């Protein structure tokens, strides 16, 4: 068995399987061995579904042997964040209240991956119901570690997915993103994460956090794999009312199109953090200079490839994003979590409930973690009838302002006429579990550059753009207009292809690397 296969991209693996150079079962076996080795260090998974994975791999091999057509991800081992319902396979959302729950149905994204003949190997750890940016808020501990430094967080909430993909535990992963939960951990773990346009990928069967912002997207090691997964995932679904009847292009050929003339914007408002002081004033706070440098380096790569770079694009309402996100996400989360009463599914309290309401209260008391309780309480507080105007309506107005920034810069008749906006994915790289030596303000504002896209409903892709002097991955983000995933993939593909994003750090090169090395301590790519 050749263990190097796990380091190939999904695109390459599917090709080898289709052409019978390796079998899906062999590839799965290599992945399981890899998981056995690194999982004790990464803690990326809540559940590993070896039995179901073997069945699926065998089914794919049988199809190929019989000469039947197979899907574009034939035999590719993948993981899914534990927020995706998987029929008969435990789905917890990282929460104790759902511990042991076996969903009666598959999420739409799982169905589509299955139809594409990908092989589900397990469910990855995440912050409880997606609420967090470090993956520390999970009922299932130890939580995932950063593959580049096990003292540091993997990011969140799709931390398990990003850590798994970075350490070859499965080739790609399904994540969800409500305020940056795909892009932030992807940046921290040095992988690619794409948050699609709201409505591009069906959310059917995905445990809800904040429904007006929840999106489903891929986490991969290459831009091409992200495009490949978007080919599989994107499209209208009658079961999700917000999905659009917008045709789905072939993202791989779109991604390869000419970049000449592509208008790329950089905004000073995305190179600083706007901190809300207790007196209501807003103060600027600098981000890590190495991250700013990575953004500039990426812009230079695109410029030399023929793109037009427009600096000084004002995005003045970005500063409202964090406080407004705080309000809207908590109010929606509070109502979405109402259904977890311990009665219909998951774990009812064994603490001698005396009546129905006591059962609800005790099950929620026992089942929910600290952060979730805090968010329920703040959501409950802010959604009070007499506070509706003060919090919810104001936050909605801020949301409309944030959206108007993007309408302006992407307007084809406007002043900027951008195709993509280039920003950092995060204001700082992965921080330590103990927070030592890390700027607490930047930690608090870690989703400052990702949550505006959830507000505006726009697509964003985070991709590796080199490393800090400490050897931690840096992520940069391309943001596009509604349903313009093609353009951000094109920009990201060029930045990745030219290979100059960071010396020797192109994820596509992982396949060429020495296999004997532990994924920890150093980059798995060096």
């Amino acid at each position, binding site marked *: 068995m050749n263990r190097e296969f796990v380091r190939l991209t999904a695109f390459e693996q599917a090709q080898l399987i289709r052409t019978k150079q390796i079998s899906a079962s062999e590839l799965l076996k290599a992945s399981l061995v890899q998981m056995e080795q690194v999982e004790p260090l990464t803690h990326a998974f809540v559940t590993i579904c070896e039995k179901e994975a073997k069945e699926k791999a065998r089914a794919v091999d049988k199809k190929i042997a019989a000469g039947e057509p197979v899907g574009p991800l034939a035999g590719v081992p993948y993981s899914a964040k534990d927020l995706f*319902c998987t029929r008969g396979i435990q789905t917890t*959302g990282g929460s104790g209240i759902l511990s042991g729950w076996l969903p009666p*149905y598959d999420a739409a994204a799982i169905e589509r991956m299955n139809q594409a003949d990908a092989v589900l190997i397990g469910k990855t750890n995440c912050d409880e119901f997606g609420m967090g940016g470090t993956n520390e808020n999970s009922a299932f501990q130890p939580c995932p570690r950063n593959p580049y430094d096990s003292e540091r967080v993997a990011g969140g909430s799709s931390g398990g997915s990003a850590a798994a993909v970075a350490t070859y535990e499965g080739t790609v992963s399904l994540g969800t993103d409500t305020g940056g939960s795909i892009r932030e951990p992807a940046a921290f773990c040095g992988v690619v994460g794409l948050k699609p346009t709201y409505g591009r990928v069906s959310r059917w069967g995905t*445990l809800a956090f904040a*429904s007006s912002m929840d999106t489903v997207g891929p986490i991969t090691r290459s831009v091409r794999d992200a495009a490949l997964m978007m080919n599989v995932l994107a499209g209208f679904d009658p079961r999700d009312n917000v999905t659009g009847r917008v045709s789905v292009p072939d993202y791989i050929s779109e991604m390869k199109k000419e970049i000449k003339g592509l208008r790329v914007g950089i905004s000073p408002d995305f190179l600083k953090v706007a901190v809300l002081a207790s007196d209501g004033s807003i103060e600027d706070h600098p981000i890590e200079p190495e991250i700013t440098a990575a953004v500039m380096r990426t812009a230079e790569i695109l410029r030399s490839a023929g793109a037009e770079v427009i600096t000084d694009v004002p995005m003045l309402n970005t500063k409202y994003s964090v406080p407004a996100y705080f309000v809207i996400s908590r109010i929606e989360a509070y109502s979405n*979590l*109402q259904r977890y009463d311990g009665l219909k599914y998951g774990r009812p309290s064994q603490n001698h409930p005396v009546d129905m309401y006591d059962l609800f209260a005790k099950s929620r008391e026992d089942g929910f973690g600290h952060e979730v309780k805090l968010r329920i309480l703040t959501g409950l507080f802010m959604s009070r*009838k007499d506070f509706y105007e003060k919090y919810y309506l104001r936050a909605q107005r801020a949301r409309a302002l944030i959206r108007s920034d993007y309408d302006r810069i992407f307007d084809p008749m406007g002043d900027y006429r951008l195709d993509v906006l280039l920003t950092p994915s995060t204001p700082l790289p992965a921080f330590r579990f103990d927070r030592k030596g890390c700027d607490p303000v930047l930690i608090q504002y870690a989703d400052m550059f990702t949550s505006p896209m959830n507000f505006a409903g726009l697509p964003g892709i985070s991709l590796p753009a080199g490393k800090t002097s400490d050897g931690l991955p840096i992520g940069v983000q391309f943001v596009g207009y509604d349903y313009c995933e093609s353009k951000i993939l094109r920009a990201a593909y060029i930045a990745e292809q030219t290979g100059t994003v960071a010396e020797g750090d192109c994820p596509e090169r992982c396949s060429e690397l020495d296999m004997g090395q532990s994924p920890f301590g150093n980059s798995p790519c060096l």
Partner: protein
Amino acid sequence: MDYIATIGLETHIQLNTKTKAFCSCKADSWNEPPNSNICPVCTGQPGALPSTNAEMVHKAVLLCHAVHAEINAVSFFDRKIYLYADMPGGYQVTQNGQPIGVGGYLDVEMEDGRVNRVRIDNLHMEEDAGKTRNDNGIRLIDLNRSGVPLVEMVTKPDLHTADEAAAYLIRLRRLVRWIGVSEGNMEKAQLRCDANVSVAPVGSDTSGRKCEIKNINSIDAVRRAITSEIERQIGELKAGRAVDQWTIEWDNDAKELRKMRSKENAVDYRFFREPNLMPVVLSPEQIRDWREELPEMPWARKQRFITDYGLPAYDAGILTAERDLSDYFEETFRFYGEDPKKVSNWMMNELVRLINDSGIAASALKIRPKHLAKIIQMIDGERVTPAVGKELINLVQESGKPPSLIAEERNLIMVSDETAIREICEKIISASPKETAAYRAGKETLLGWFTGQVMRETKGKADAKLAGKILKQMLE
């Protein structure tokens, strides 16, 4: 001192759509085992998402049109948050801020002929909850009804007596059945009502503090619950006490009111937009097209039956009790083409009996209007006797065959051959010496008995008038 009551009604109307409001489960689960008609959406499974049922929107708009409400071109769904075991999502999806219909009215004719115009505040779409049943201290939950589409129709406080409230509900029930948006069966809780009741001294310019009575599920209960609540409030006022703002439940078994909660415990439902559903957007063309689908209203049709067909008000009232019955009448008349009162008589005497006996709706009968028209024509043309006509109605309903075919197959054509009838008359007279003697002795009323014997002998086929004439000749 005299007191006046002010009443507003909130009526929940279960729409008769094929599927539930936000999923593809069947909407009608009547008589089905508990929890047999459910899916991830209507059981609130994590990750499940609602999708708006277009038929629900269509039927809600029809109802809005029928009560002259203004239809919002854009309306939204909101979450109404509360915890209960039969509300699996932890919130009800309803329309709070911008509902499908606003304003409008329903004219209610009272028994004394007075017309009471009840103004509508709004109409909104929402999902029903499941059912809770207590069984020896165990709470059993059935989610079959969870997610069934409702329209809640809220009136302005325009009603003043329990009778007016009951008349409003009867009128509304007829309307929803007539326009085909609901079965309107209160026993099946397809129509349920909450009543807001307040009482104040006559002439005072402020209305009293209102109490809400929940879950009134029959016309009789509406009368009783509102009457006893008005009495209770007057009693409080007479005793010099203020009426507390309560929510009260009507206990249909004990036939009494029970306090649920007082105002201090009022629930904050924390309404906010349901982010998983797109707004309901209707174009002006769509709204207009749906208005044109609306049938003639029952009260208008009744009036037309009186003026156009010259029917008595009583006949017109019965024939327009159900839309399909009135359609049946008009179609039969079209086939028949003559005296509408004759059609009305046949329908009221024979067809309504058939409908009541069989429980089959007029529109589902095997005997169609053309058949009924044909039967009346056959009687007019003296092809069959009226007695055979009645029998033919049953026979057509049983077989679905045309009446003329049945009449021939079964040899039911009227016997009007004088020789044939004379033979039968002779036979009967010679077999009935006692009656013959009595007749001849002057008991002339026995002629009817003799005619009856002839009809029996011929299984109703004989021309009764002719038989009477022959008998009279022969007996005298």
